[in-house]
């Protein structure tokens, strides 16, 4: 599904201020997998995500999505950014926000509206279509952003610290929402987070990155019983063991 081959990215050319964000990173993600990428702050996680999405051109190596080398944004890919208040368009109603990307698909107005309505329903916001983003809470706005991605029916959904800006309770709700939509839609999800517990709770697999320049320092399979539950999963011995393992890997490379 997703192949990352010897990826490197340097900001600022080769000069003295050059910043090596990623170096020789290899990673492959299987179809239908929910992969969490964890790493210390500023380690180049977002650079990795932007390279996958074709939003930046990496200075070395390549990314392949469904066998195609990424040169511009691949079709059937959707991104959910951390900052929902900036990634949603404030001048559009919620329903129009969700329907807008569907202009890229071969859909008429009615089909777009129906798809938007359906996506909003699946994130529990069926009544909010006519509202504007500023009239919704942060958690609801992020649900809209997720609905916008879902309506697009991507085969690959990238999420860049999607729950970093919401309170703890909302965060748990949104984690469960991701697990739910994932089981309904056949799609591969790559979720970037700095939250170790979240990565183990949500992921099928957790990849740990080093501090910049980022490369893979750990790759753990998460074999927790399904369906996951905020209380029982988090007290499961395997969960406790895994989060400790991920924590050690993150920390081991976070300290200088």
């Amino acid at each position: 599904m997703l192949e990352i081959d010897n990826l490197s990215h340097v900001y600022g050319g080769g000069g003295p201020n050059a910043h090596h964000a990623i170096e020789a990173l290899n990673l492959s993600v299987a179809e239908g997998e929910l992969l969490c990428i964890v790493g210390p702050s500023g380690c180049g996680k977002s650079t990795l995500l932007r390279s996958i999405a074709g939003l930046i051109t990496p200075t070395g190596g390549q990314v392949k999505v469904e066998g195609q080398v990424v040169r511009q944004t691949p079709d059937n890919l959707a991104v959910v950014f951390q900052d929902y208040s900036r990634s949603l368009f404030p001048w559009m109603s919620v329903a129009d926000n969700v329907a807008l990307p569907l202009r890229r698909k071969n859909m008429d107005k009615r089909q777009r509206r129906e798809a938007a309505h359906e996506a909003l329903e699946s994130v529990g916001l069926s009544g909010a279509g006519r509202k504007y983003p500023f009239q919704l809470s942060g958690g609801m706005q992020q649900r809209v952003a997720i609905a916008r991605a879902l309506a697009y029916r991507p085969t690959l959904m990238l999420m860049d610290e999607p729950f970093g800006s919401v309170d703890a309770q909302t965060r748990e709700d949104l984690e469960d929402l991701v697990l739910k939509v994932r089981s309904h839609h056949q799609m591969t999800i790559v979720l970037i987070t700095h939250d170790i517990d979240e990565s183990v709770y949500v992921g099928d697999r957790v990849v740990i990155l080093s501090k910049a320049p980022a490369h893979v320092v750990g790759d753990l399979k998460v074999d927790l019983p399904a369906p996951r539950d905020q209380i029982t999963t988090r007290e499961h011995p395997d969960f406790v063991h895994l989060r400790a393992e991920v924590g050690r890997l993150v920390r081991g490379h976070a300290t200088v």
Partner: protein
Amino acid sequence: MSAQTLARPRPASTAIRWSRRAAGALAFAALIELVSRTGLVDPQFLPPATEILARAAALTADPEFLAHALTSLIAWAAGLGLAVVIAVPLGLLLGSVPIVDAATRSVVEFLRPIPSVALIPLVSLLIGTGTQVRITLAVYASLWPILYNTMYGLRLVDPLAKESLRSYGFGPLAMLRRVSFPSSAPFITTGIRLAAAVALILVVSTEIVAGRGEGIGVFMFYAGIAVPARMTDILAAVLWVGLFGVLVNAVLVAAERRAFRWHHARMGETP
């Protein structure tokens, strides 16, 4: 902490705000009335406010004055309309293609500070004294606020909003249409509102300086050169021009608040 200290003064309601403004205008009129009636200022130069108001009311039934006013109104609307049609696309172009901006910057920076009123004699020499001069100068002067506000609005477009759209595979033109333009629309509208006042100033000034044909400024010009000067006519016409400016501004402010509620919510104002 008591609730008292947390309470902020509530913004005045529309009715209260308007009555305060009316009180201010009334006090000003009373002052004019006073200095004129007492002879503190020669009534020849400053007639009493009641006389100005009476004359202003009478002018609404004067077909000659109405023809003057209509001519000016058409020149104003044409000038502002053309300025919008030219400046908005130009601003979008300059604001989104840095190389064009860089190439034209020196010319723009040279032209912008020239007071447009100073160009009236020059342009009159070039293209006569008819309506075309008024429109030309109104267009020229009202271009700037629209152009600058459009470019400023484009600079404030959130890069993440653009990136979101780009992540769904939209190209640069879709970006301009779907993100950059709607996002800068509140700024463009503010530019148009400022330009509406500038266009009015230019139309009336050009009419006064040119002193020929029809127009509210021409009406003032003739009232001014009459012996003795018809001061009441001049001030009544000034009153109508001023009221028109206030009205246009109020309508545009209301339209902005209504259309760009999202923008005001974002800027942290009470809508």
